[in-house]
């Protein structure tokens, strides 16, 4: 039987990530320009915060080694159904971000809404279409007419 991850393991991983971020930040600051007649240059504050992050991460390591937390760790495996759904939604958002300028808000947003509801196992297709189009249009009109903020038109730019 596969051993389930425990919170102690995940806490240790998080701590090592914290240490890695801190060390990386300090390493990057070694390349910062040095300014004359400036007692506290641009590298000082980031280094202090990085050291603080490293020390707290070490403390987390120590506390977790002393007090073994055997509660189950939250799942993060791609085999987990919930994680897969979350990744699909995040992927939809990523595609939205990458294509928004090119394709445009009016085309992409109803697709995002429809597919997000689909991914979340909503299957009332009539309502899905109505909500997708309705919310997209409502937000578009609100921004365009009321707030005078242009949303990317993309392929439909010729209409505006």
């Amino acid at each position, binding site marked *: 039987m596969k051993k389930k991850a425990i919170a102690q393991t995940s806490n240790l991983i998080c701590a090592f990530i914290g240490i890695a971020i801190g060390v990386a*930040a300090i390493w990057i600051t070694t390349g910062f320009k040095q300014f004359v007649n400036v*007692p506290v240059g641009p590298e000082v504050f980031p280094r202090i915060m990085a050291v603080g992050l490293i020390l707290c991460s070490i403390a987390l390591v120590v506390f977790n080694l002393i007090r073994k937390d055997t509660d189950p760790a939250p799942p993060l495996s791609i085999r987990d159904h*919930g994680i*897969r759904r979350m990744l699909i939604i995040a992927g939809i958002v990523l595609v939205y971000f990458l294509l928004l300028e090119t394709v445009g808000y009016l085309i992409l947003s109803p697709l995002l809404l429809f597919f*997000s509801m689909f991914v*979340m196992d909503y299957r009332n297709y009539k309502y899905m279409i109505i909500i997708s189009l309705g919310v997209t249009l409502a937000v578009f009109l609100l921004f365009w007419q009321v707030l005078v903020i242009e949303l990317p038109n993309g392929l439909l730019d010729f209409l505006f």
Partner: protein
Amino acid sequence: MDWNLLLNSYASVMLNPQILIMLFVGAVGGVLFGAIPGLTATLGVALLIPFSFGLDLVPSIGLLLGIYCGAMYGGSISAILIHTPGTPAAAATILDGYPMGQKGEAGRALSIAMFSSFCGGVIGALVMTFLSPVVAAAALAFGPAELFMLAMFGLSVIIAISGKSITKGLMSAFFGLLLCTIGMDPACGYLRFVPKGVYGLYEGPPFIPTLIGLFALAEVFSTVEKMARGEMKDTQSNAKVTRALPTWADIKRTWKNIISGGLIGTFIGAIPGAGGDIGAFVSYGVSKGASKHPERFGTGIPEGVAATESANNGASGGAMIPLLSLGVPGDSVTAVLLGAFIMKGITPGPMMYVNELPTVYSVFAALMMANLAMLVVGVLGVRFFAKIISVNKRVLMPIILIMSLVGSYAINQNVFDIGVALAFGVIGYLMQKYEFPLSPILLALILGPMSEANFRRFMQIEKGNFMTIFTHPICVVFIVLSIGSLVFSVINQRKINKRTGTVIGDGKVEDLAEAFEEGKSDAE
């Protein structure tokens, strides 16, 4: 106190249709956000900030204050009807609100909650009006060292109340402070931690998209995951709501709890980092301790609902005190409000009382009117609100998703900001999953630039000798308070973990049923 100016400011707010409309719209939005579990006042304010861009300062602040006050009340709707707090500040309302609903008194509980929220909010607004100028006058004695330590104190308090683990809270805070060093160095103009060509980060991570990512997108991702696994179900309410306002008998029964709750909430809300959730529980504890029949608390009595709801709305006025007088936000919502002020070109702080006194008084008036707007919205909409919370989450989450993405875009009309929101959405989702609180990051992003600028000014003045900070009495007080708040939090958390395993703060409330049963058994 300039009474003429104060009265003129009140008149200008009350007689301005645009401000009144914005207050009303904000209150409606706030109650909706507060009533829907998973949405918070912070999220509501963050999502609606882009909508306030085209408005002048007072109408936009009125909109945001309307949301704030509305959300503090709105959380009680789902707490009473479906045993789920709509906002963390409503967690304590479950203790007596839900049992009242179980006894068929849901309408009575909702009306008491609304009335108590209104009274608590008015108490908070009045205390804010008269106390914040006093604090502002004292704050003029603050120099760079004091302002730096004030920022550190604010961070320490929010770390202290943000979750089970102080270590994780500190890690979140340091991570947030490190993030805020991305971009142009404020003193030398040197570009830090920004890859070539990534112009969107030249001024650091854009605040609103970061906020939307951390709180809105992270919550959407988490909800999608939990619903897929069956850990979260669509919550439904079938309660009938018949009464809008409490009876005179109920008001006579609860007026002492309302006043004490309002004052407790206000003063706790005034502590940077402490908010309505802490105030509500403290007020509940005080009311129960002072009651002749403490055993009745937790069985469904009006006093329990009144104590908690007046406190969490009182905290809204309290949180404005350090925001306006010191420029330090009292909680996560006022942290976002601070951003809104700065975007309008106003820097809250003691100089605001010198240079922008009419604006300050207008904000006082707007907060008072926001509470009135909340009352009107509550009276008119309480039956409707009970239906909204039954909207299918599978429809609601995608709508929140699109609103978040569009909101992120609208700030700078830059698609890059959507990418920032997505990145912080993933970071926030992972941090929440592994119990790293998000509020310290938010506050660090707000206080970080201020703390670095003042730290560098102080070091410039003292020629690099940091130890002279101990010669500043106010700094020493802040150091002691900061350490004290962290130590107190560790001790307190151990007591809580022993009793219930309940976590308060940062939007995560676990084992509330257990806490409810414990409260019920305490009452019995």
